C-alpha cells in the first residue's frame, strides 16, 4: 500500500490572492479581537466592576471599552475608564473590527453580486466605508 500523498500544495501553486490573505486576516483579526476583549474584561475587573456593574454592563464595556458604555452603571468615577490606555485599546479594537466587518460585508455582497463590474463597485464602496467609519470611530473614541 502506497502512503497517502500529501495534499499540501507549495505556496507558489496555491494561488495566493488578495482574497486568500483576507480569508486569513478574518481569522487572525477574530483572535486579535478576543485578546483585546479579554484585556478589557480583566481591566474592568481590576477597576472594580465586580461590585459596581452587572454582567451585561461588563460585557458591553469589554466589547467596546469606551467610557460612555459605563455611564449608566454604579461606577463612582469615570476618569480611570476614560484613560489613554482604554482609548488606545478601544481604537485598536475599533480599527480591527471595522476592517473585519467591512470585509464581511464584501463576502456577503459577493454571494449576490456576480458580475465583475458589480464586484469592483462593491470593493470601491467597501474601501470608502472602511476609511470613513475608521475616522468617525477614532473621533468618537478620543472625544467622548
Amino acid at each position, binding site marked *: 500500500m502506497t502512503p497517502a500523498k500529501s495534499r499540501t500544495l507549495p505556496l507558489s501553486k496555491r494561488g495566493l490572492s488578495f482574497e486568500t490573505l483576507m480569508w486569513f486576516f478574518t481569522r487572525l483579526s477574530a483572535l486579535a479581537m478576543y485578546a483585546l476583549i479579554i484585556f478589557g474584561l480583566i481591566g474592568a475587573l481590576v477597576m472594580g466592576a465586580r461590585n459596581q456593574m452587572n454582567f451585561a454592563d461588563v*460585557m458591553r464595556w469589554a466589547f467596546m471599552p469606551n467610557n460612555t458604555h459605563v455611564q449608566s452603571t454604579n461606577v463612582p468615577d469615570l476618569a480611570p475608564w476614560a484613560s489613554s490606555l482604554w482609548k488606545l485599546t478601544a481604537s485598536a479594537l475599533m480599527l480591527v473590527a471595522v476592517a473585519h466587518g467591512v470585509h464581511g460585508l464584501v463576502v456577503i455582497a459577493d454571494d449576490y453580486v*456576480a458580475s465583475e463590474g458589480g464586484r469592483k463597485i462593491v470593493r470601491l464602496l467597501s474601501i470608502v466605508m472602511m476609511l470613513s467609519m475608521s475616522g468617525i470611530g477614532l473621533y468618537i473614541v478620543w472625544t467622548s
Partner: protein
Amino acid sequence: MGLKRNVGLLKGLRYKGQGPMLTFVLHRIGGLGMAIFITVHMLASFLGGKGGSFVNGIYESWAFQVFIFFCVFFHAINGLRITIVDLFPKLIEHEKEAIWVEWAVFIPLYGIAVMVIIKTALGG
C-alpha cells in the same frame, strides 16, 4: 458562475443542512446585525443632537440590548469555532461535536446576559 440557483425560497428553507447550516445562517444574521446597527450607532454618536440621542435611546432599550447581545455573543463564539477549525483543519472531523460545545458555551452566557438585562429593565 452566476446567480442561477434554480432553487426557490421554500425549497431552500427545507434544505437539511441541520446544525452547521443553522450556525452559518445565524453567523450571517449576527454579522449583518452588528454591521448595520453599530454603523448607525456610531453615526448617531458622531452626529449627536436630537436625532442622535433619539437613535441611541432606542439602542439602550432592553429589547434592543437583547437583540444586539445575541448578534455579538453568537458571532463571537461561532467565529472562535470557525477560527479554530480553519487553523487546525484536522479538527473538521469533529465539527458536529464542536457545534454542540459551542451551544453549551453560548446558551448559558447569553442566558445570563438576557436575565441581567431584563432584571435591570424591571428595576433591579
